[in-house]
């Protein structure tokens, strides 16, 4: 398996943060999949997430990202 150096860069992302047991990582993906977008707003990339250990807690801090075609203001 080849490992290479790259950057990860996006301009418009919708994010969702939560703490979950590691095995429940898919819960956040389901939530992001259910996000309803408007007519001229659409998903233009794969959903991805970051995971970070929490001190003295077996859960992980997850941040889920949903790439969008343009900027959006949340209500």
């Amino acid at each position: 398996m080849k490992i290479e150096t790259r950057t990860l860069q996006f301009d418009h992302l919708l994010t969702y943060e939560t703490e979950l047991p590691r095995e429940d990582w898919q819960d956040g993906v389901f939530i992001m999949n259910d996000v309803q977008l408007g007519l001229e707003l659409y998903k233009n990339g794969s959903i991805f997430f970051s995971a970070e250990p929490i001190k003295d807690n077996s859960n992980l801090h997850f941040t889920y990202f949903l790439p969008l075609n343009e900027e959006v203001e949340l209500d």
Partner: protein
Amino acid sequence: MDEALVLRQADQEADFHAAYQTIKDHAQANNIEIEDKYYVVLIEIYRGYYYRFICSFKETELFTMIFGNYSIAYRNVVSKYYNFHPDQLDHTINSFVQLLVENDYHPTGNVFYSMIIELAEDGLMTAEIFIPIEESNFTNTTGEQMFFRSYFLIESMIMTRVLNDFEQKASEKFVELHHYMKIFI
């Protein structure tokens, strides 16, 4: 639908049946065999709809060249919004490529665009043009508004192709895709 008879502004006829009869008469007078199934396309205008009446020729398949469940995926995609005259598409793409090259980026040779406003009153269209580059890192120092994403993916698309005569045929195909969506999606 590859070949069809179209009656524009069919709402001037008494009803659907009268519109169908008008087309049938025309077909008969011209020795054209048409299918029994017909399509009515509603076109939205300010205070309601007017409709277009379409009968397809016999033995032609409906929307033969439109495919569903298509997706596009690229890595390292830069995009920029442009207003331009439809004839200037090539020129506009070239100037975007030039802008990237001048800033030491290397376009991979692919390009695609998304129509934001098809044709405004001033005859200009607005589109977001997307160009994948070889670099995975993008820093915009130009002062021009550009966007970059490491991964680009659009799923669940309908797709059709054109060969040659791109500028003319692209807009025809665009209308075809619209009709397809109205009828089937």
